[in-house]
């Protein structure tokens, strides 16, 4: 069986497609993935998302996106696709120790 980027089966026989739901919990914050749901179209997906994921003021804004449209990186690419932190410590502030003890630095 083939699966999509979220692990769910790719759609062929579903009556209603699967949508991923992202909730912005308050102004100033990013939308965060909350879960998924089935809905016939985008408008119903947003309404269902409101009923399912924001029953207690959990959000001020919703995004829905078709689950099959999520393009995911390969889970096994941890080492090759994502840059190895090894040897690149200089990208972190903690690498620089000469300035220790200097105020506001």
């Amino acid at each position: 069986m083939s699966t999509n980027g979220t692990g769910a089966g790719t759609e062929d026989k579903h009556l209603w497609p699967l949508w991923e739901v992202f909730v912005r919990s308050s102004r100033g914050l990013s939308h965060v993935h909350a879960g998924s749901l089935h809905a016939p179209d985008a408008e119903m997906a947003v309404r269902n998302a409101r009923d399912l994921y924001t029953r207690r003021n959990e959000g001020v804004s919703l995004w829905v996106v078709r689950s099959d449209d999520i393009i995911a990186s390969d889970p096994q690419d941890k080492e090759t696709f994502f840059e190895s932190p090894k040897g690149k410590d200089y990208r972190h502030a903690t690498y620089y120790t000469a300035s220790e003890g200097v105020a506001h630095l």
Partner: protein
Amino acid sequence: MSTTASDPRTGLGEDEGRAAFDALIAADGRVEPRDWMPEDYRRTLVRQMSQHAHSEIIGMQPEANWITRAPSLKRKAILMAKVQDEAGHGLYLYSATETLGVPRDELVEQLISGKAKYSSIFNYPTKQWADVGAIGWLVDGAAIMNQVPLCRASYAPYGRAMVRICKEESFHQRQGFEILLALANGTEEQKAMAQDAVNRFYAPALMMFGPPDDDSPNSQQSMAWNIKRFSNDDLRQRFVGMIAEQVKVLGLTLPDPELRFDEESGRWEYGELDWDEFMAVIKGNGPCNAQRLQRRREAQEDGAWVREAAAAYAAKQQQRREQEVA
């Protein structure tokens, strides 16, 4: 290099995949949907998570039974919110189960065909209003005891769903306790109703943790995989300790003549449960099994035209948009 065929989901061979999985579990890490996982781990999760989802969905029925007869508008609004939450919990869990590659339709089909199991507790009837209180206090109380450790389950989407559920579940337990407390402090008749409800739901609630450890073949493997964190008997023991104290506040009693606090071990001892009854209810012979499934099946059938109409509308809109573009 592995010589076995690689998994189409992950591109990993059996040996490589298993080594990565074992290391992750040993480090108490979290498994994400597209990671390599042993087939029996996947199967165990699909079984446990879908049974859990089915339980939430079937669990709507015994309580919904009292929505129209709730004693006040306030209680009615609360009960509706609670039943709606149960539907939500079922949907969170179906959604998490789908990340294991099982389509939703298949899960729904397993429930309505009677192939899938769900928690035995929901096959007991709600005979009077106080039962709604007893369900909130005892059944949701036992569910919370069971579910809090599941927030740390090794399969990440399950854990994430449980975090959301547990946050919502504590309102359920408190509203149930409040219903019982109001009745227990009411007339003699009301107090008797509360006691009757507690009497009937006590043992079935204790059985919600599953068979005794010696008799629970899947438990050990689930604990080794960090899906389960505590054994059935451990959780049951904690639950008894909790409600044995809480029942004093209600001014009611628990229907177990052997229940006593053991000074030496510092824990509450309780009497043997009727596991034959448990097995009978699980196998479909409880008081309400047939009714619960029939109701679920009818709801599914009655909603079919709505699902089809919505799908047809969506397809038509899609077609229209495509024509406009062309």
